[in-house]
């Protein structure tokens, strides 16, 4: 009789253990998938920003900034971070009328880069944390996924200029038009691969 109980206990332990392992493997898979997706989204936003920067550079006749934008668009894997940092430096220096739609589009694109990078950093950290867990290392659960890497650039946030709205305009609903414009698509933007219209989701 005791032997039967031992058997049942062993089966229960095996069941619980394998459920735990399967769940952990699923978690590892999920964090890696998310880190990769976030990387793709960040990549697309960097391209959009560089394209918007090129448009502004043309309007402002800033040759160096145009070159920086081109370099950022064409940069290969190893040189990407330096190119983006260089572009950020130029963006902080560019002076153009802030009512200019191209400028607003650039700011909007830059805001999205800031957000996308933030999210990417968090998700990469989660994936790396998961890889360090003892059970994951012991069973080499992460061996099928390449270790995600941080996209190591300086904080791309631009000093947001104070809203320069004249007092008269403020009373006639300028706030609304400003917020609506800030999300408008930049003129001449390269649509990122895999772009889908909002309705499709």
């Amino acid at each position, binding site marked *: 009789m005791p032997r039967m109980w031992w058997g049942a206990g062993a089966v229960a332990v095996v069941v619980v253990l394998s459920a735990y392992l399967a769940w952990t493997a699923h*978690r590892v898979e*999920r*964090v890696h998938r*998310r880190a*990769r*997706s*976030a990387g*793709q*989204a960040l990549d*697309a*936003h960097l391209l*959009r920003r560089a394209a918007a920067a090129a448009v502004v550079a043309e309007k402002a006749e800033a040759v160096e900034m145009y070159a920086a934008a081109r370099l950022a668009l064409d940069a290969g894997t190893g040189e990407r971070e330096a190119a983006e940092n260089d572009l950020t430096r130029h963006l902080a220096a560019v002076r153009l009328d802030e009512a200019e739609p191209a400028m607003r589009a650039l700011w*909007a694109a830059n*805001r*999205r880069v*800031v*957000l*996308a990078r*933030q*999210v*990417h*950093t*968090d*998700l990469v*950290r*989660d994936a790396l*944390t*998961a890889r360090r867990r003892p059970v994951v290392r012991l069973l080499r659960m992460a061996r099928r996924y390449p270790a995600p890497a941080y996209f190591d650039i300086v904080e791309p946030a631009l000093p947001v200029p*104070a*809203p320069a*709205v*004249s*007092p*008269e*305009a*403020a*009373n006639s609903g*300028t*706030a*609304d038009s*400003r*917020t*609506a414009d*800030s*999300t*408008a*698509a930049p003129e001449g933007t390269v649509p*990122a*691969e*895999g*772009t*889908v*219209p*909002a309705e499709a*989701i």
Partner: protein
Amino acid sequence: MRIGIVSPYSFDVPGGVQNHIVDLAEALIGLGHHVSVLAPADEDSDLPAYVVPAGRALPFPYNGSVARIAFGPVSTARVRRWLARGKFDVLHVHEPMALSLSMLAVLSARGPVVATFHTAMTRSRALSAAQGLLQLVIEKITARIAVSELARKVQVEHLGGGAVEIPNGVAVARYAAAEPLPGWPGAGGALGFLGRFTEPRKGFPVLRSAFVTLARERPGLRLLVAGPGDRAELYRDFPADVRERVEFLGLVSEATKASMLRSVDVYVAPNTGGESFGMILTEAMAAGAAIAASDLDAFRRVLDDGRAGALFPVGDADALTALLAELLDDAPRRAAMSSCAAATVAAFDWPSVAQRVLEVYATAIEAIEGRVVDQEWAEPRPGG
């Protein structure tokens, strides 16, 4: 966009987080999005149409105080049903690091999750032990928002993750349309102060000293004070000859607060430090009051470097006296400041804040899907 918002705290009791959620939800609906809010509340309580009650919150001893929260198998089932029916593009939870509906929703979520952190301390001692559970929650959150610099700092240091800082919005229209209290501001001029006058960092003694000096020179000048505190304690420190020109409202409702701010010529913020953002200044700006504020970094930023309100050296009663005298005598300057303030405060209006939140939603969705959705995503879609 289909947005699901979870409130950890019951709508049966008022509170800052609940107000934030209601204002945000209404701003998002105003921008043409579909919003459903899940909150602990009785089935029969009087709620806005977009709020789904998740049942009564039970009192629960938590982190040294009693919190009213909903947590357990019944709540879990309700959260799952709400998630399944809602088919949300993004789930937005508030304060998910405490045992609450928010945490349940995060654990049950499959898609993009945005989390907003309100208080500076979001990690309880009880939960510190459950590091595994916390990691599970953190792992499911895609993007984080902190409502203040302090909340962001704590988030970074204690939970090890970044956060985007998006401050609370101000319902500008509500303040701009409020009726002044009857008989205010009056011909002799009126000053206003809102806050706990006994708290040293609110700097009330600076204003008191300036008011006493000014009131003796100007027979019609009055002072309107609102906030928690004892009337006798407030009056005790004023000399008898000006005491009757101080009006004390006590703790006020949101509506009375708006009326109070509309009732004064100059709103005074004599704080000596510790203000992380200066919410009250944005409210005073929305109400159209001219502002005299301490020259603190946060106030300087909110007041657009002194254009939307006058600044005086921190704690300097004489400077405040001189500044208030100038402002009270110069109606055109007050008007100019208040119209500049109206332009500045537009950036803090809920629709603007909601746009920034929408950008975070879009970022979270893209990070999960691995592709960039079209920019129209974040734009208002009438009837959408």
